[in-house]
């Protein structure tokens, strides 16, 4: 069975990862280099994606932006999955009071529009890359936690676990051994979609000026300038947006492909 979604998605994300890794070597210019003599130049042989109002090369900025977006997406989701696995396991293993406490907490967290919560926290803290990753992570652990918990609960019920318990293995060890192969699929789907979501959140925050701060280039903060150059420099609107579009498509394709494998 061919899985076009998965293959396309992995191809897209691999290429983007290589670009992000090799950013210093493949970007034609220094992304922060201001050039007074080349302001708002349309795409040309010298500047493939044109320049911005400070004369900086857009392609180089987008290449460096790729780094930022992927790092933020992956680390934010890493935090979320880490927290989710711990809280979900605690909830599933111990049940009762611990379970009620953690799941109620998850319910409450799910009551907040994530974007509101993040903006409010940003208003109190300084917006920085680290803060953004941590905040996104802290507000998106609920999905993985619920997945892990329900997986543990269903494992507890299964016969083969009961049988192994009778032989004398400790239940925690048995469950852990079976949990990983069973839970890894759904958690991976959730995480891939989560990375896409986190990148969208970051671009949105940066676009509002509350995310990644200049001079560090991010796709969101490049787009801030798109608004003031609307009608003057279409390339500033089009290219960063396309970069976001392709990245999100890549992760969504992977998630779709994984869903097909899990069935």
């Amino acid at each position, binding site marked *: 069975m061919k899985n076009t979604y998965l293959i396309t998605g992995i191809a897209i994300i691999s290429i983007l990862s290589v670009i992000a890794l090799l950013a210093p070597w493949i970007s034609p210019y220094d992304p922060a280099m201001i050039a007074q003599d080349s302001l708002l130049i349309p795409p040309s042989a010298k500047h493939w994606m044109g320049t911005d109002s400070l004369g900086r090369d857009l392609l180089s900025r987008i290449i460096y932006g790729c780094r930022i977006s992927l790092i933020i997406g992956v680390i934010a989701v890493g935090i979320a999955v880490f927290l989710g696995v711990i809280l979900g396991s605690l909830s599933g293993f111990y049940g009762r009071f611990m379970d009620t406490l953690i799941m*109620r*907490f998850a*319910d*409450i*967290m*799910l*009551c*907040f*529009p*994530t*974007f*509101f*919560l993040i*903006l*409010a*926290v*940003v*208003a*109190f*803290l300084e917006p920085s890359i680290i803060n953004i990753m941590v905040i996104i992570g802290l507000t998106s652990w609920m999905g993985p936690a619920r997945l892990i918990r329900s997986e543990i609960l269903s494992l507890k019920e299964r016969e083969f676990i009961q049988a192994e318990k009778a032989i004398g293995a400790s239940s925690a060890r048995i469950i852990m051994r079976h949990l990983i192969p069973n839970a890894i699929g759904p958690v991976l789907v959730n995480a891939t979609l989560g990375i*896409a979501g986190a990148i*969208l959140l970051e*671009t*949105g925050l940066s*676009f*509002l*000026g*509350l995310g990644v701060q200049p001079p560090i280039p991010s796709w969101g903060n490049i*787009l801030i300038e*798109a*608004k003031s150059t*609307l*009608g003057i420099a*279409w390339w500033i*609107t*089009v290219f*960063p*947006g396309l970069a*976001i*579009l*392709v*990245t*999100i*498509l890549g992760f*969504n*394709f992977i998630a779709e492909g994984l869903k097909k494998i899990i069935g």
Partner: protein
Amino acid sequence: MLSYLIRRLLGIIPLLLGITIISFAIIHLAPGKPTQIEQAFNPKVSQEVRLRLEKLYGLDKPLHIQYINWLVKLGKFDFGRSFIDERPVAEKILERIPITLTINIFSLILVLLIAIPLGVKTAVKAGSAFDHALTILVFLLFAAPTFWLALLLMQLLSIQLGWLPISGLKSLDFEYFSFGKKILDLAHHLFLPILVSTLGGFAGLTRYIRSNMIDALKQPYIYTARAKGLSQEKVIYKHALRNAILPVVTIIGLSIPGLLGGSVIFESIFAIPGIGRLFYEAVMSRDYPLIMAEVVLGGVLTMLGNLIADIAYGYVDPRIKYKR
């Protein structure tokens, strides 16, 4: 039914407390007191701001006292006064709600009007070229940030073609227009925001209705409907659709947090004076009472959305009994 409602309403009390606790925790999230951060931002007003914050949240008192005092004030819908213009926060929020509501209701209606027939069509013709084309479109719309779509459409419709105003809600000479012209002017200004919001929403719902519909069309009762001699249209639109569409009621309730979050970016781009933009302005000017009020409001609205979705679903779907 009544006892179910009462139980559900009682069930929201712990959630409400949780929402307020987390919101309250945010004030104390920053290292040190909020007053100290304020100082770092703007040393000149720090003295005054500190006094105001201390008065508002009683920051010199023990934590639990602070929380309880704040909760009591919330209960009276007293959110304090804005740091910026000294007006009561509740008043500032209330006057911004209608416009946000209008845009969301219009775009919700449009989303339903587009997504339902498209979802049904693609389900009935699953695997056709039309289905594939729409799947691609859905994936693209999912992946495109709304604010980017907004920028592209502004570029095209407002600047290149000049059909629509770029942003804002009213023309400059709005006050002198006749009533009819005022409505037209508003519609003219709201067209683009509603369009963008619709584009952002219909992709997901189309996909959802498609998969529900495909599922419904495989159910045994569809054979019965066909065996009765009903036309293809009746089988699809009466027997399958009704089953496929019921869970949509829930989706509408659950979409509230996304809509609220989206409204922040959205209303900022189009310069629409709704609660999203108000929140953005509050964050930019660190108007803490306003920020806190909006966070609590967001939480409460989301929770109510969930609750209403649940109850409404039980109401429209005869299979759900009010037990549990």
